[in-house]
């Protein structure tokens, strides 16, 4: 969550910067920089320094002896070579990407729909619904993961019980003992439900905030011209809120790429076929008594590079669109 505020602030600032406004002579003012300096210093200390360490360690052998003080020896590209030739790495990468695509899509669609709903509800109902969805957002990941493991469990799990009650013609039979964590596809189905449930409220509330800032006349005019809800959304709402959607997209991609806690609780180390990159990195780096922090760093570096690439692409699209409109 570290990166929420700066990214959102950037989005907020964007429309203002495009606004031509009264021409003023550009002067070099130190105040803005001084004001963000403490934040930058903290972020640099807590994020950039560890990131630099990870980059360095990914080229080194760092085990228990090195942790105890022995100098780390450089191994060149050995760590990268070793993970890239590991079948499990590619399998984890595929799971990570496919999961992110599914979860991000569902989160954005569901979040937007709920945001639109909130915008149309009366003040009191909107307060009730947003309080409800915020509970999901505020639930700690580990709590959510344990709850979902129980819901989808075989002994006393509500989901299997419910599916079994439904008519067999609708959902098929034999749900009582259905093992939701037996195969990667099933595990990721539960994981997607859990992660989407937790992350759509943020999208909903952000979209709502954007909708509140839309001039009502535009939508009214569209309605007068005979545009339905679908048309009005794509012709007016979406283009106007594009910056917000882009930020939400990038943030969701970042969050869903690095999901760890929920998967660790749901299927853990005994199901390596369901690993994602985070679990793979954890298993290589910390899992045993013989730490291999160099190898773990290399996986983390690959994950970071992937995220940076995704972010860069979208930031670029965002800037381009800013120039066009």
């Amino acid at each position, binding site marked *: *969550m*570290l990166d*929420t*505020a700066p990214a*959102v*602030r950037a989005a*907020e600032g964007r429309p203002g910067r495009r606004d031509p406004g009264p021409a003023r002579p550009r002067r070099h003012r130190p105040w803005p920089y001084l004001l963000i300096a403490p934040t930058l210093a*903290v972020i640099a200390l*807590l994020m950039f320094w560890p990131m630099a360490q990870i980059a360095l360690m990914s080229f080194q052998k760092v085990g*228990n*002896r090195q*942790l*105890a003080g022995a100098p780390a020896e450089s191994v060149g590209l050995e760590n990268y070579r070793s993970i890239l030739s590991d079948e499990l790495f590619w399998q984890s990468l595929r799971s990570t990407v496919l999961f992110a695509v599914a979860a991000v899509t569902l989160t954005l669609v569901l979040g937007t729909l709920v945001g639109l709903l909130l915008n149309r509800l009366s003040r009191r109902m909107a307060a009730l619904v947003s309080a409800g969805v915020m509970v999901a957002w505020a639930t700690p990941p580990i709590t959510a993961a344990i709850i979902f493991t129980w819901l989808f*469990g*075989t*002994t*006393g799990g509500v989901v299997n019980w419910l599916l079994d009650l439904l008519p067999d013609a609708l959902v098929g039979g034999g749900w009582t*003992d*259905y*093992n939701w*964590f*037996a*195969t990667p596809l099933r595990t990721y189905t539960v994981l997607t439900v859990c992660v989407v449930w937790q992350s759509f409220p943020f999208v909903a*509330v*952000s979209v709502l*905030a954007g909708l509140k800032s839309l001039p009502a006349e535009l939508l009214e005019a569209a309605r007068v011209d005979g545009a339905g809800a679908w048309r009005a959304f794509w012709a007016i709402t979406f283009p106007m809120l594009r910056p917000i959607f882009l930020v939400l997209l990038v943030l969701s991609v970042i969050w869903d790429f690095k999901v760890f806690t929920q998967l660790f609780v749901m*299927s853990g*180390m*005994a*199901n*390596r*076929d369901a690993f994602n990159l985070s679990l793979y990195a954890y*298993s290589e780096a*910390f*899992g*045993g*008594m*013989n*730490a291999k922090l160099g190898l773990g760093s290399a996986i983390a570096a690959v994950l970071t590079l992937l995220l940076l690439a995704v972010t860069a692409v979208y930031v670029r699209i965002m800037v381009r669109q800013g120039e066009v409109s």
Partner: protein
Amino acid sequence: MRFFKFAATATAIALAVTACGGDGGEDTAGGAPARLNVWMMGEGTPEQTAFLDGVEAEFRKKYPDTDVVIKYVPWPQVATTFQKAVASGEGPDVTEIGNTDVQSHIAQGNLADITDKVKGWSEAATLNKTALANDQADGKIYAVPWYGGVRGVWYRTDWFAELDIAPPKTWAELVAAAKKIQQEKGVPGIGAPSDQTNAILSFIWGNGGEVAVKEGDRWVGRLDQPQAKEAIDFYTGLVTVEKVAPEKYVGKNELQGPQQDFALGKLGMYIDGSWALKEMKKISDKDADKWGVFPIPAKNGGNAPVMAGGSDLAVWENSKAKDAAFDYITVLNNKVNAAKWADYSGFSSMFTDVKFTDPKLAPFTEIAANTKMVPLSAGWGDFEQNKKVIPNAVKAIMQGGSSAEELAKANKQADELLNP
């Protein structure tokens, strides 16, 4: 956009919280330290704290000026906590260590050599010899066994009596018993979860197989040998061939289904230790008086050797108060406290002459007569708990993989991981 303000505030709070402080213990050199840091594994319970308070009171009769500080380390954080202790030099004085991790710690030089101290401790004479062997390297002793647990097959004495089944003595009888229960009682005959290395080992050993053997100074995998393959085929076959074990435990351990189902009367048999009794009573004690235990059978009769899981006690190499630390161990694990601890925890004491008070747990004393240690390699922890090589292979086979291929892969991993 009040929401964004909220998000920004939350971020600021998160940043502030991460900047937490560390703790450090000050020790005086030798003699009576001002403070003795004791690390216990697990979450800790009020009962355990009360037990340890009693131990501290007894310890302070000899060290009135020493403050004993207990720190509980939850099992999932054990590896990282010890890594931090090594990296920062801020370790414990006395620590509990999972017995499969002892060799890793010795190899890393984390534990003090306590050979002479153990030899001067009169009660040490009746310590379990197999367990003590696991605490040694190059003829020196680095830890002492504290408690251990062996596994047996929990079953329903009333169902066995009703269906006229005798406790199985061979694999064939085990399958026959499971089938009969499944037919007559309408519940799965036996639980065979894939993530239960220790139980699976008993089947491999009960067929004369091995995970790995030491040749020279290298561990060589034996999982691809016929005995091991036959045992794995039997265990996975409980699910795939005989269909007496349900598919719903694939990918899970004995606590993620089998234990609950057995306690609730929805499963005929499952493999677990003596400590399971108090957990099952918490789930449902309706049928508790009908639960019984028999040893895991070997293929052609007799008890299969069982892995003695458990914990040991060690003095940390960087401790500045090694004498006081060892004295604490001799109080914590004197025979009176050992008996109290066994009854509270449900784990067997590692003194051969300290027994459980509850007669239901008596079979475990018989089972414990035939224990076997896993390969004494510094890489076993990684092989068993982190990479979970056997559970992942067993899972793949239960889901239709070829046992020859999966075991060949697992064997290759054993060759790598057991020679770190």
